[in-house]
C-alpha cells in the first residue's frame, strides 16, 4: 500500500479537530464493534449455562436440543424456559442470558396471539414487538448490522470498480475514454429498480439467504459504479499532465504503477469525501428496496421491512415505526456528520464559505 504523505497526515489531524465529526466517527466505530459481537447482547441463546456441573457456552456453537438440559423435546432448547425452570428448582444450575433474550425470528406471542405489543421492560421487549410478535430490538439490531455490512461492502466494490475504470479512462484517454464514456452513458440509463426486480425473480430460491443477499449486492454494485468514474476520470486527467507523472514515466514506471502509486494518493481527497455519502445512499437504497418488498428475502430482519410494518400500523402500534425511524435518522446523521468533517478537513482552503 501507499504511504500517506505529510499533507494527508495533516488532513487527518484536522479531522480530529472537528469535534462533531470526530465523535460521530468514534460513536459509529463503537457501534460497529458492538454489532460485531451482537450475539452476546441480543440473542435467544444463553451466554453461559451451568447444568449438572457442566459448563455450556451455546452462543457460537451447534444447537443444543431440549434433551441436553432435561426437557423432552429434540429441537433447540428454549433458554428462557430453562432460566425459569432453574429459578424454581434449587439445584445450583444457573444460566446467564443476554440483555435482550430474544432472537430476530421467533414469534413470542405473549398473551396468546401474535400481535404488536407495546414496549415493556417486564417481558424484556424493550422496544415492543412487531405484528407477528417478534422482538423489535432484536430485529432492529440485526437489521442495522446487515444494512451496515451491506453498505460497507457496497462502498468497497463500487470504489474498486469506479476507481479502476475511471482512472483508466482518464489516464489512457483517447478512443478508450470515448468508448467507455458511451458505455457508461448507456449503462447508467438502464432502470435500476426494474433490473433488481427482474434479476431477483430469476434467482433460484434454493440458494441460501447470504447468497441471495450477495446477489442483491452484486446487482446493486453493477448499476451503481458508473457515477464514481466521472469524478475519477477528471481528477486523473488533471494529475496526468503534472510533471511528476511525466517524470515517473521517464524512469520507466508501468502504467499500473503510475496510476495506483502516484496518481491515486493525490486524488485521495475526492475519494474520501464521497465515501460517507456512498454509505448513506447504500443504506437508503437497501432500506427503500426492503420497504418496497424487493430487498432482502424474508424473514431477514431489515429496517425497510420494519418501516413498512410501522406505517401500516401507525395508529395501533406507533412503537414499530418510531424505533425504525429513530435508528435510521441516528445512523444517517452520524455518517453525514463524519462526511462533513472529512470534506472540511480535506478542503485545501482552510477558511471557506462552507464552514
Amino acid at each position, binding site marked *: 500500500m501507499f504511504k500517506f504523505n505529510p499533507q494527508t497526515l495533516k488532513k487527518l489531524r484536522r479531522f480530529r479537530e472537528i469535534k462533531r465529526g470526530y465523535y460521530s466517527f468514534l460513536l459509529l466505530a463503537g457501534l460497529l464493534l458492538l454489532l460485531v459481537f451482537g450475539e452476546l447482547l441480543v440473542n435467544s441463546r444463553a451466554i453461559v449455562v451451568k447444568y449438572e456441573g457442566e459448563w455450556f457456552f451455546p452462543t457460537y456453537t451447534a444447537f443444543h436440543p431440549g434433551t441436553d438440559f432435561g426437557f423432552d423435546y429434540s429441537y433447540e432448547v428454549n433458554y428462557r424456559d430453562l432460566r425459569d425452570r432453574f429459578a424454581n428448582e434449587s439445584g445450583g444450575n444457573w444460566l446467564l442470558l443476554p440483555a435482550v433474550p430474544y432472537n430476530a425470528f421467533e414469534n413470542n406471542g405473549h398473551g396468546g396471539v401474535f400481535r404488536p405489543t407495546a414496549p415493556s421492560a417486564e417481558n424484556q421487549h424493550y422496544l415492543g414487538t412487531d405484528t407477528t410478535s417478534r422482538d423489535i430490538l432484536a430485529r432492529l439490531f440485526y437489521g442495522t448490522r446487515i444494512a451496515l455490512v451491506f453498505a460497507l461492502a457496497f462502498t468497497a466494490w463500487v470504489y474498486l470498480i469506479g476507481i479502476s475504470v475511471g482512472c483508466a479512462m482518464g489516464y489512457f484517454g483517447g478512443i478508450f475514454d470515448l468508448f467507455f464514456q458511451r458505455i457508461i452513458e448507456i449503462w447508467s440509463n438502464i432502470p435500476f429498480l426494474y433490473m433488481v426486480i427482474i434479476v431477483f425473480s430469476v434467482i433460484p430460491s434454493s440458494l441460501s439467504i447470504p447468497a441471495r443477499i450477495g446477489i442483491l449486492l452484486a446487482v446493486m454494485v453493477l448499476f451503481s459504479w458508473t457515477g464514481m468514474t466521472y469524478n475519477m476520470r477528471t481528477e486523473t486527467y488533471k494529475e496526468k499532465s503534472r510533471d511528476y507523472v511525466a517524470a515517473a514515466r521517464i524512469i520507466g514506471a508501468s502504467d499500473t504503477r503510475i496510476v495506483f502509486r502516484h496518481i491515486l494518493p493525490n486524488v485521495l481527497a475526492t475519494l474520501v469525501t464521497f465515501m460517507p455519502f456512498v454509505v448513506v445512499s447504500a443504506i437508503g437504497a437497501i432500506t427503500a428496496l426492503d420497504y418496497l418488498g424487493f430487498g432482502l428475502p424474508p424473514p431477514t430482519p431489515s429496517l425497510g421491512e420494519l418501516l413498512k410494518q410501522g*406505517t401500516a*400500523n401507525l395508529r395501533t402500534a406507533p412503537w414499530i415505526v418510531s424505533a425504525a425511524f429513530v435508528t435510521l435518522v441516528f445512523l444517517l446523521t452520524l455518517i453525514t456528520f463524519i462526511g462533513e468533517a472529512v470534506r472540511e478537513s480535506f478542503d485545501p482552503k482552510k477558511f471557506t464559505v462552507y464552514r
Partner: protein
Amino acid sequence: MTHITFKRLRTFFLGSLTASLLFACGGSGDDASQDQSSAPVDNTEEVQAYYAANPDFFSFKTPEDIPEGLVWEDGSELPEMGSAKAKKGGTEYRALQDFPRTLRTIGPDSNGGFRGMLLDDTTPTLGFRHREYFDYVPGLANAWARSEDGLTYYIKLDPRAAYSDGVPVTAEDYMFMFWLYRSSYVTAPWYNNYYSTMFTNITRYEDYTISISIAAAKPDGEARVLELQPRPRHFFKEVGEDFVDRYQWRFAPTTGPYVIKDGDLKKGRSITMTRNPDWWAKDKKHWRYRFNADKMRFTVIRDTEKIFEAFRRGDLDQSGLNLAEYWYEKLPNDAQEVAAGYIKKAAFYNQRPRPTFGLWMNTDRPLLDNLDVRLGINHASNWQLVIDKFFRGDYARMQTEHDGFGEFTHPTLSAREFDIEKAQDYFARAGFKQRGPDGILVDDSGQRLSFTLSSGYQSLKDILTILKEEAAKAGLEFRIEVLDGTASWKKVQEKQHDIHFSAFGVFLELYPRYWEHYHSDNAYDQAFLDDGSVNPDRKIKTQTNNLESFANLEMDRMIESYRASDDRQEMIELAHAMSELHYEHASFVPGYYQGFYRVGYWRWIQYPEEFNYKHTQGATEMFIHWIDEDIKKETLEARKTGNTFEPSIEVYDRWKEN
C-alpha cells in the same frame, strides 16, 4: 381528444453516486392507437357467413320445432332477494386499489378487479343462482326446460329485456355471443376453447326462444347454460383485427342497472357508475330490491391503509374487516366511531366452496417424491398455531382439498395434525435421522431436509415465517420466498416450485373439479406407458394447475368416470374416493378457511334484517344494501354536535358450520 400522460415515478435517490432514477411508465399506447386505427369494419356479413359455415352449431328453426312435453321451470316461487324496505337513491363511495386497465370484459387485461362491476356482479344472466336455495331464479330468461337426454336446454327469454341504450335483447345476441367468444379477434384463448368445447349448439326458434346444447349431461347442466350472458350485437359489429384497441375504453351497453356516462371515467382517478332509471328489470321479481344506490363513486386509493383511514373519516361507506388485526385492533369495538354508533360492525357466517389455502408440494422434485417426507411435512406444518395465534382462532382448519361442497366434500377426512414426534418418525423413515449443527435434519450423505416455501401473497408472508419457525422444531427447514403475484403464478405454472403456499379461487357450483389439479394429463406428457407402468422418460407438463405433479392411474380412471357421470350419487361417491386417494398421497397440506366475512359500515348504509344470504362471499356481492339519506344527514350532524347512537356490533351465525 388524445392526451398522453406520462406518469413520472420517482423512486429513490442514490446520493451523489448514481443519477436519480426517473422513469416513465404507462399511459401512452392504448388511447393513442384508438384514434389512429383504421375506419370501423362492419362484421355483419362475416358473422352470418360464420353461422352458415357452422350449421351444426348455429341452427335456425321455427317454434313448431320445439319438442312437446317439456317441463318448464322458472324458479319464480323462490323468495325474493333483498328487502322490501330498501330505498333507492344516494351515492355510495367506494375505493379502487388499481384503476382498471380496460373497460373490455374480454381480451388482454380484462380480468382485473373492476370486471365484476362491469359484468359479473351487476349484470343479469339467463338465470341467477339464488344465494340461499342454490336453485335458479329468472334473469334474462323467464323459463327454461331440459331435454330428455339432459343435453339441451330450451329457454324463453324475457321480452322486456333491453340494453342500457334501449335496444331489446333478442336471440340474435346469444348467437352473436358465441361468435364473439369463439373469434380470434378477442385474443382470449380460454374463451375460444371453453365456448367451442363445452357447447355444441345454439338454436333460434324465434326472437325470444332459443335452445342451447352442452357437450355432456351433468347434474348441474343448467348452470352451464343459465349463467350465459348475451353480447350486444349492435355494439360489437365493429369487432375486427383491432378489437383490443378499438374497445379498450368503450363502455358496452349493458343489461345491468349501472352505466358509466360520458365524462364519468377519469383515468387513473375515479369512475362513477349511475343507475339507469329505466332499467328493464327494475320491477322484476328477485331484482327489484337490489342495486339501490343511484350512483357508485369509485376513487383510486392505492394504499390499503389509506383506504382504511378514508373509511374511518367517512369518505368511504364500507370496509372489509376480515383480518383479525382490523376487526380487533384497527377498528375495535371501543373505537370512538364504533362506540358512538356511527360505524356498525357485522360478521356474517356463510357456506360456500372454500378457496384452497394450503401447501402444494411438487412431487416431481427430489425428496418430495418420497411419501414419508411428504407425510412428515404434513405433520410438521403447524396450521393450528397460525389459526389460533395469527388469525386469533376466528378461522378454521381446512380438512380436505375441497371443503364447502356440501355432500361432495368428504365427511370424515381430517387434515393431519402438527405433531413433532410423528413428523420425526416419518423423516427418519426417509433417512433423515441426525440433526445438523443448526437443528435441521440431515441424512447419511449430509443432505439437509430443506425446501423452498414460496408464495405470491405479500400480505400473508407472516404465515410463512410462523410455519418456518415451527417446522424447524421438527428438523425441517423452509426457505421462504415471497414473490409478487405474477412472478409466483409464473413459477408454479412452470412447475419450478418445491412447496407453494397458495389458494385457487372456487366458484359457487355444485361439485368440485378434479381434472385440473389431479389428472396425470396435467402433470406429465404421457405419464404412463400403455401397460400402465410409469413412463421413465416422462416430462413435466407446464402451464397447468396440477401443482402437485399428481399422477396416478387409479385417480385418472376415477376422474374420467366422474366427468362422464350424470348421476349425482355416483359422483358423490367418486368425489369421496378421490379425496381419500389424494389424502393418502399426502402431497397437499390443507391450510385454513374463513367461514365468514366481516365488514364495517357507516350507519347510513342499511342491510336487510338477515343481513345477507347463505352462499354469498361478500357483503356487497348482492347489492341488497341501500343508503338512507336521512340517516346520513343525521349522522353527519351528530358527528359535529357530538350526539351518539346505540353501538351496533352484530354477528350473524345462522349459517355457521359445526
